[in-house]
């Protein structure tokens, strides 16, 4: 199901916790699995559950709680826009709407060329930088005016 390399990483995470509390590693295990597979299919979550000896539904609870886990395949770039209150007050929704128009998709959709996926996100802890966006769970973009969004997308299309 997962590569030996991923399993090694997961084992490394498991080792951080007491032996009878393997399931503490569920978040990192899901992240590692997602890095390999791109998204978390039911079989992947089932595998993680079995690997950590926990009920599949408990894994599913975690995977659905955090929106950094992809429960469906995503495009090459997953752009998550924060629409929580501080961002919303500083143009977060406008930025989201601009992105939607520009890409021709709504939240939770992927462009037909498989390049972009748009997600609505929760607070990223950078309210002062609003509007903020997170790309592929790793890279943060701050003060996203329409111009900066254009530039970002241009950059990504290359």
């Amino acid at each position: 199901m997962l590569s030996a390399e991923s399993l090694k990483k997961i084992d490394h995470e498991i080792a951080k916790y007491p032996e009878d509390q393997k399931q503490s590693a569920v978040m990192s295990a899901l992240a590692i699995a997602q890095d390999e597979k791109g998204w978390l299919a039911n079989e992947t979550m089932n595998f993680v559950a079995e690997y950590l000896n926990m009920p599949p539904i408990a894994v599913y609870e975690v995977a659905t709680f955090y929106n950094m886990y992809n429960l469906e395949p995503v495009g090459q770039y997953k752009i998550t826009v924060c629409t929580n209150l501080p961002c919303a007050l500083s143009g977060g929704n406008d930025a989201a709407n601009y992105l939607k128009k520009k890409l021709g998709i709504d939240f939770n959709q992927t462009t037909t060329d498989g390049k972009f996926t748009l997600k609505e996100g929760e607070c990223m802890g950078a309210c002062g930088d609003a509007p903020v966006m997170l790309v592929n769970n790793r890279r943060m973009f701050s003060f996203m005016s329409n111009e900066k969004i254009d530039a970002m997308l241009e950059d990504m299309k290359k």
Partner: protein
Amino acid sequence: MVNIEIDGKQVSVPKGGTIMDGAKEIGIYIPHFCYHKKLSIAANCRMCLVQVEKAPKPLPACATPVMEGMKVYTHSKQAVTAQKGVMEFLLINHPLDCPICDQGGECQLQDLAVGYGSSGSRYQEAKRVVVNKNLGPLISTDMTRCIHCTRCVRFGQEIAGIMELGMAGRGEHSEILSFVGKTVDSEISGNVIDLCPVGALVSKPFRYSARTWELSRRKSISPHCGLGSNLIVQVKHNRVMRVLPRDNEELNECWLSDKDRFSYEGLNSEDRLTQPMIKHDGQWRSCTWQEALEFTANKLLEIKDQYGSGSLGALGSAHCTTEELFLLQKLMRGLGSGNVDHRLRQSNFTTDQSLCGVPWLGTRVAAISEQKSILIIGSTLRKDHPLIAQRIRQAVKKGTQLNVINPFDDDLLVKLNNKVIVAPDEIVRALASVLKYAFEQREVNAPESLIPIFDSLQSDMESAALIAKSLIDNSPAAIYLGNLAQHHPSYAQIHRLALALAEITGASIGILGEAANSVGAYIAGAIPDLSSLSTTVGLYSGEVTGLNAVQMLSDASDPKCRAFVLLNVEPEFDTYDPYQALKTLQSADFVVSLTAYKGNVADYADVMLPITPFTETSGTFVNTEGRVQSFNGVVAPLGDARPGWKVLRVLGSMLKLNVFDFDTPEAVREKVFPQDMKIDKYLNNRLADMKINLESKESYVIQRIGEVPIYQTDTIVRRAQSLQQTRDGMSIYAWMPKKLMEQLGISAGDQVKVTQAGSAIQLEAACDEKLPDNCVRIPCAHPKTFSLGAMFGEISVEKL
């Protein structure tokens, strides 16, 4: 103890207790949804907010630990404002569909909305809608109504031992569901219906059939497993509409197994027999009671005259009431025959002459929770005794060590201390090994007679040694013999070894009652040989002895019995060797079946007399701990069916037997349980004859493990449609370990031909890697498998 004040009343609460505990103690009601006395504290509904002096804001009563001198106000302005605020939020997304909601009238949210809700809503936005889930044939969902109290989730984690439901998503998007597309398969899953404070989880079989206020509530006792769960049977228009638990902390607590809860569907089955019927020249026709009873009486007398009293035999189910079984054995003994038995699936009766009392649980059910170490021998515990398994699960969480000796390694959903998984014919030896280690660890010399046995056992069996250690090191400890042990061909040896083990380790020994009235049937005298009970505990005396169930049904070519009286028995499902039983009955001269259902009775009987199930008669069950529980009928008999005790009484009078002058069931009860009767005096698992010898094993190439599936145990549950559609109800396969499958060239999903003692059936093969190498696990008591032979023994399997 911590002293606090709630609404001006003083109350002492144990340290670590909560405000909710204190309030319950003095009868002050604090509104709540997520709090439940048997579940962990979640404090997520926030309905129980109360005002606490010096606290800056309202606190949840269920999760706030008491502190000395705390002053709590549950109905102050601040508290009520907070509670009303919470209610307003809870109602934001709750559909106001009470008129079409099954929970209407018994809904906590509805009730509390009357007290804390306002008459209109300030919420103008769109309400959320949640898709319903398919959780299987028992639980119906309406997830939009869910208020996310997570009682159902915690029930799975904490009580059922398996987390099948969870809360996915977060915030407004959170919803209760099972892992993608899975059904809820726990054998006690129905309890989430009771736990759900709203109409999100409701009973699928009951749904839309009645309103709670139309139902009359009547007390009853479960007729299924040996626990004797207390029931509330709800009735409308003389029909049982549903069954709910009646709290009894010492037995079922506030739970019910799905079998107890949903079996009522079988009561209203199409298959009910509603008229007496007689077979004339191969044709069945209905007749009057008078005709049927006269015909039966004449036939019995005729056969008695022709072949002697010993040619009459009676088999009664241990799911019958004590009154019925008492009259059955009196009827037989009145006719001069001691051929009467209720242990239809037992195969070894060699301890009958050495009983020191009626076999029972050995402790109170409640005392199971206090054991520090438990050894279970031969039991599909979760399926046979769902709520006893639940009780043990809770005990193990508190530190009890659970050990098992079984021919399969089913997940008991609890941590096992140690297990010995061996083929059925190895169980005796495994138990002997535990005994050997117990002697060694106690540093006691084993009796002479046991030494050659111990020498013959395989050395170093580590898990057996650890089981012995667990029983010795922990007190109190208990050994329980499960249904499978009782059906086992070497039951006598298992029983004796277990007794010896109990003695050397200081553990108590118990026999898990297979049926609701397994203990009561002995008290009623429904066994062929009452002499040992008579000499040891003074139960009955001078009664004629006779043949046990296996002897009565044994040889069709040279039948011991020419006529049979069957009481609530379906021989193809209820006997140890159904193939043999059917052959014998078919060749008998006369068979009268007192039955609530038509079933396949026509295949072997000559007369069918319709008797009533437990809901239509009064009666008494004695549960596995020896608790005498009487109950009354909750509905009138269906059609011309009559209570079994009445039918037997009239039959007895017709046969001019002298002890049959009972006019009421109370009179029969009084006879079996006299006023001053102390039942404890009769209960004893000891055996006078403790001769242990390991019979030389027959060597099996492949052997069968025959278990009774959870929803095939008795006549009623067999006809409960919804239970039959559960996973447990449907999983009838030939289970084999991988190694055996490879050896036979079979893969999972293949159709196989299973042959046992000359009869063959076709089944689907399935893989259970945890089975011992030479075992095939094939459930008995099922329409697909009843034409096979005995529950244990040689069997062959080939690919079709």
